[in-house]
Every structure is written in structure tokens, then in C-alpha cells.
């Protein structure tokens, strides 16, 4: 949040608005205290990040409506992490690579030591305090399958294959109180041709609002023109996950070319809807009928992608409520879409000091959690663009500070 324009954000994004947005996307499934803490603390995040060498840039070209609410760091996530590692190195902090926590010894809510495998060799490391920031379980396909059933087979994971949720599982087994629904996650619609893991940002396809989206059976299933990118971005992964075979196809015509962030994969392309449908292995007649019905339902309006315009359909189910224009200007283009899981929300319960709460209800005094592993406290469902970073930064700082305070006692 910011109450005045900053170097990296335009206008203002007051606490009430930010909190309101969060309340809306989560449908109220949020810990109000922690949510307000996150929103308020976000105001000091950019300066703190800059102090550690992180650099920011104006909102990226092609990311409409984000300059007010989202600060972009230069170079992306890896550049950010590089700066933090460099800062840690300057402070003389030892970093072990290719190392994983295998088990944690927690007695009566007090962390004792961690069993760590470093280059295949097991070591016991004891500490007066522990901060866990080991992510969700989005890369653990078996765990995803427990939650989603066979549908999980068709999910793509946008990040590293290493987020297996092992520490999360250990913490829960050792008595930490868990929070969140295992099917809840931040998921976006990405190109179905993306690699199973780590396709990252370039696999997103955002031309949903400029055309129409059909499922495996050639039927539309949701209002493509409901809202702007941040909201759309946050819901379409889940929408596709709920379709048969967890796949969907976005279809646009030449009017849409150049109006959305380019995708890394070239679109399928044909001079006819029939041709495109058969390239996409869709039932041709069904798709042709869906497009025809859509085109007939489009009401005249003044197209403006920058506002919720008056271009809409009438008489369809579901309607397309904005930016609806007939798909009639060949060549036609299609992108196959799959759910791309960014991170899962199931995690451990924490308090405002980032202490992990044990199932007894009392906080573990020397055990702290930050990031995706505790994001479920604030994100019960839904997503706000950039909010994972906010939670990670805010609670990373809190957890670090509180762990240091505890260790000094």
C-alpha cells in the first residue's frame, strides 16, 4: 500500500482499498489481523528491498492497470534472489546449496535441531531459532493428486520442481497446526505446451478477454470479459482446472493481434474456424456453431480494452460482458490452455510474530514461518497479483526479526 505516489508506484493505494481487494478475492477467507498487518507492512517493503540492493522499474510494457498497485523489480525473481544472496554473503552468512531439510526435532513446541542432507550426507544442525520458508507443495504431484484426484495429472507447475512440501509435511507431522484447503492455490491459465515444471512467466496467455474460450467439447464456460487482467489472471487457472480433461482453448481473430502480451509459443493459425478447430483437435461442427452463436449475440458497442466497455453479448449462457466483438476477421488464432499452478495455500498456522502455532493452540516460541508455507493464513482462496511476494517479504522480515530477538534472549 502507499498513500502517495512513490518512485515505483503511481497514485495511491490506500489500506482500505488494498484490504478490500483482498477481502473480495478471498471471499472473506482470510485472517483479518494478519491480512491488515500484511497490507500495512507492505508500505515499507520497497525501501527495505532497495536497501539490500534490489532495484525497481516502472510497470512493464503490456501490463495495463498495474502501475498503481504493483511494483516491479528489475530483472525478475532471480535477480531479486541474487541480490539477497549477495547481501547474505556480505553479512557473512553461510549458505549450503544442494541441501535439504529431511526432518525437524520439535519437543513440546520447542525446535531442537534439523536433520539436513547436504550433498547426500546427513547432518544434524541445532539452533536456538528456526525460520522455515520452504514453500508450498505445488511440485509434489502425488500430494496434488490426493487433493485434486486424477485432474492433477493435467496440471502444469509454473515453478521449480523442488517445492515438494517436505518441510511442510514434517511440520504437520510434528504437531504444527495446519491451515488451508489443499485444493486452493494460485493458478493461472498457461499455454498447454509449456514444460511440466518451471515454464515461468513466459507461458502465460492473456488474450482471453479479446476472444472466446471453449472447452474440450467446443463449448464456452465462463464470461471472458468479466474483468481486467489482475482479476482474470487469478481465476482462469482454476476455471480451466474445472473443465473436462483440464484443458481449454482460447480463440481470437486478427483484430486481437498485438493487443496482448505475446506468448512464447506461436499460436495455431488458420484462415477458417473449421481449420483452426481441427488443428486444435476440437469437434469442428461444435466449435463452428459456438462461434456462430457468439457472433450473432454480439451487440454493437465502442470497443475499448482500457475500460470495462459496452461491447457485450446478449442471449448467451454464459454472456461475455465486455470487449465482445465478433470473431470474424481471419486469420484465426488459437492457444491451448492448462492450469498452471504457481503455489499452493495449504500451510502452517502462524501468529502476527510469524510464530508457528502448534495444534495445542500455543505458539512454538523458537519456530517461525514465512512465505508460501504460511500464505494460507491470509489467502484462503483467490489471488491478488503480486500478493505472494508481499506475504513473503512482510513475513520474511517479521520472522527474521523475531527469530533474532528470540536468539538474543
Amino acid at each position, binding site marked *: 500500500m502507499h498513500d502517495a505516489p512513490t518512485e515505483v508506484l503511481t497514485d495511491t493505494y490506500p489500506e482500505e482499498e488494498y484490504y478490500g481487494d483482498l477481502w473480495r478475492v478471498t471471499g472473506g477467507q482470510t485472517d483479518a489481523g494478519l491480512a491488515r498487518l500484511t497490507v500495512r507492512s507492505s508500505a515499507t517493503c520497497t525501501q527495505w528491498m532497495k536497501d539490500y540492493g534490489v532495484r525497481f522499474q516502472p510497470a512493464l*510494457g503490456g501490463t495495463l492497470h498495474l502501475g498503481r498497485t504493483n511494483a516491479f523489480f*528489475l*530483472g*525478475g525473481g532471480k*535477480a531479486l534472489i541474487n541480490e539477497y544472496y549477495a547481501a547474505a554473503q556480505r553479512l557473512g552468512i553461510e549458505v549450503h546449496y544442494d541441501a535439504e531439510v529431511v526432518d525437524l526435532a520439535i519437543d513440546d513446541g520447542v525446535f531442537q535441531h534439523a536433520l539436513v542432507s547436504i550433498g547426500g550426507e546427513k547432518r544434524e544442525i541445532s539452533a536456538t531459532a528456526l525460520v522455515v520458508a520452504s514453500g508450498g507443495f505445488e511440485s509434489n504431484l502425488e500430494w496434488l493428486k490426493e487433493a485434486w484426484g486424477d485432474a492433477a495429472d493435467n496440471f502444469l507447475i509454473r515453478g521449480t520442481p523442488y517445492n515438494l512440501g517436505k518441510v511442510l509435511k514434517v511440520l504437520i507431522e510434528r504437531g504444527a497446526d495446519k491451515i488451508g484447503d489443499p485444493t486452493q492455490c494460485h493458478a493461472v491459465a498457461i499455454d498447454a505446451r509449456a514444460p511440466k515444471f518451471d515454464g515461468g512467466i513466459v*507461458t502465460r496467455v492473456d488474450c482471453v478477454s479479446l476472444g472466446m474460450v471453449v472447452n474440450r467439447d467446443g463449448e464456452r464456460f465462463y464470461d471472458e470479459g468479466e474483468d481486467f487482467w489482475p482479476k482474470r489472471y487469478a481465476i482462469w487457472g482454476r476455471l480451466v482446472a474445472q473443465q473436462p480433461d483440464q484443458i481449454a482453448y482460447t480463440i481470437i481473430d486478427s483484430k486481437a*493481434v498485438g493487443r496482448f502480451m*505475446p506468448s512464447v509459443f*506461436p499460436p495455431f493459425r488458420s484462415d477458417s474456424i473449421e481449420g483452426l478447430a481441427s488443428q486444435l483437435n476440437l469437434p469442428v461442427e461444435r466449435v463452428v456453431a459456438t462461434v456462430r452463436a457468439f457472433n450473432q449475440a454480439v451487440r454493437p458497442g465502442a470497443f475499448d480494452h482500457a475500460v470495462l466497455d459496452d461491447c457485450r453479448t446478449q442471449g448467451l449462457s454464459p454472456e461475455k460482458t465486455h470487449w465482445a466483438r465478433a470473431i470474424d476477421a481471419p486469420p484465426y488464432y488459437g492457444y491451448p490452455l492448462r492450469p498452471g499452478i504457481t503455489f499452493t495455500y495449504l500451510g502452517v498456522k502462524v501468529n502476527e510474530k510469524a510464530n508457528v502455532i502448534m495444534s495445542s493452540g500455543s505458539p512454538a516460541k523458537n519456530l517461525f514461518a514465512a512465505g508460501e508455507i504460511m500464505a494460507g493464513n491470509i489467502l484462503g482462496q483467490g489471488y491478488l497479483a503480486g500478493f505472494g511476494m508481499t506475504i513473503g517479504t512482510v513475513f520474511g522480515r517479521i520472522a527474521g526479526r523475531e527469530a533474532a530477538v528470540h536468539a538474543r534472549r
Partner: protein
Amino acid sequence: MLADDKLAEGAHDPLVDGERIMRICNACRYCEGYCAVFPAMERRLQFTRSDLNYLANLCHNCGECHYACQYSPPHEFDVNVPKRFAEIRAQTYRRYAWPAPLAAMFTRNGLAVSLVLVVILVLAMVAATLVLGKSLVAATADPAGDFYRFMPHEVMAGVFGAVFVFVALALGMGFVRFWRDMGESLAQFTRPDALRSALSDVLRLEYLDGKGAGCTYPGEERSQARRWFHHLTFYGFALCFAATVAGTIYHYAFGWKAPYGYLSLPVVLGTLGGIGLLIGPAGLLRLRLRSDPATGDAGQVGMDVAFIALLFAASLTGLALLALRDTSVCGLLLVIHLGVVMALFLTLPYGKFVHGIYRSAALVRYALEKTRPIANAGLD
């Protein structure tokens, strides 16, 4: 996949992989704030050979985007913009070279070739002085520092004038070929606003500054070292050139004959420039040899080192000549210095020097493009 694929030279053509990489970068855009390459990229949805030649010449090979990249190895996408662009640049240097047959020099102009060229030119000049009946080893230093007793002024000026005209023509033709490849008209090049903007970028080395933070060169840590050494080299070269111009004006306009006094304009300019041309190239060489092999094109080390070495040698022999012009080694030093300078000039259009021409032209294009509306580039 190139939009104008007819000329693709197969999978080993860096342009083919360059296009693939740009498509990935254009879908990501997180590096937008690093340099001119990425904003220029974002104006496009497809990347033709000409686009890639342009973008590659906007890149100054700092490696910042590579260290930041989430798609660099070990990621399967294997993105490496600085390395691929370095390869594409090398290809453009050969493609635009004039006259075309001399493009082959780019692949052979390592340090050894430059040294051989220097030796040949020195020997040729020794032979010339003998033919002209001059003795290089004067028993006495009299008249003090008079270069023309070893080689008549008309000969020196005539030979170097001819070399200069040829070099200027070759560089000019290279520029024209690059400019045409980008699809720009020469009339556009002379637009004052774009020229001013590009000149400011070039003279301040805007993109080596990293908005004050410097560049990740030679390694991942940011520093201004490359920018300052480049400044010393560039302005050193410019001052030496200015010294020559001043000397020419003295000679022809005022009839003042060399040698000039230590506090005369040509000597002061040349001395200052010479000092810059010692420190600058030495620093650049040190950085180049320590530069991260992951972000560069190993095939170009020879070309880079040869240019740096010739600049350094030209300055060293020039300053030595100045210091010892009143001694008996004056004649010998003179032909060595002239041989080095001629080797430097003859290799200018076929070595690292051309980066200055193409990068500057690319920056003019960049300034021109910024004044044009963006059509169809995902910016709705």
C-alpha cells in the same frame, strides 16, 4: 521461424536461436529496465534477421540480463542473450564489411596477424626510407626531432592520407549497409533529435552506466570499471586524432613545421590522448581477459585483444617517440610508430573498432523508433 526465413543458414546460424530467445524474452519482459535492447524488442511481435542484427548491435554485452534470467542454463530454455547477440554481432561485422572479400579478415585478425602486419609495415617503411636515400640511424640528433629528415612530409602525409580515405570509405560503406539492412533511409539518420539523443548516449556511455549502478562486467558484481576505461580509450583516441588535425592545420594553414614544442597544442593533445590510450586499453584488456566466458563469444577474444593491443602500442610508441625524439633512436622509433599506427588504421574497418560505428547507428535507430508509435506489440 524467422519472418523472413529464406536466408537462414541452418541450426548453427545464431540468428535462428536469437529469434527463439527473443520470443522468450518478449513474453517475459522483466529485463526491460536494463538497457535499450529490451524496450526495442518490445516494439516487435516477430523478429526478422534485420531486427536481430539491430538488437544485437544495441547490446553491449554486459551480462546483466543473463545473471537475472530465470531461463538461463540449467533451465531447458537455455536463454543466453549476451552470448547469442555477441555471435550475431560478429556475423553482422562480416556481413556489412566493405569491400566484401576483406570480411574474411574478421575471422583472422587476432593478435598474431596484427603483429605480423606491424612488422611488415615497419619493414616496408624502412625500405621506403632506404629507397628515398634517408638514413634512419642519424649519428647526431640534428636538427632535433625533425621527423621529415627520415621520411619527407609529402610521403608521410600522402600515404597516411590515402589510408585514411580508404578507412573512412570502408567504415562509411559498412554503416550504409547496416542502415539499409535495418530498413531505414539515410534521410532519417540526419534527424537532429535522434542524432542528439544517440550522441548523448554514446558520449556518456549511457548503457554502461546501468543507471548509476554500473554493469555486471567482467563478472556478476556491478562496477563502473568498464565504462571508465572505455571513456579513457575513447577520449584518448579522440584527443590523438585531434592532435593530428591540429598538426595538419599548423602545417598547411600556418606553415608551422613539426616538430612542435612540448607545450604546443598538437603535442599537449597527443600526450593527454596518449596517456588515456595507455590506461584505457590496459584496463579494458584486463577486464576482457577476466570476463565471464558464459556471457561472451570466445571466438572474438582474438579480435578484441588485437584492437586493444594496437591502440596501446600506438600510444606507447608515440609517447616514446616524443620522449626520445632528440636522440639517435628517433628514426627507428618513428618508423615503428608509423608502422603501428598504419596497422591500427588498416585494421579499423575489419576489427573491434566497427562496434563503435554499428552501436552508434543502432542507438540513432533506437532514438528514431522512440518517436514512432508502437504498432501491434502487445501493449493494449
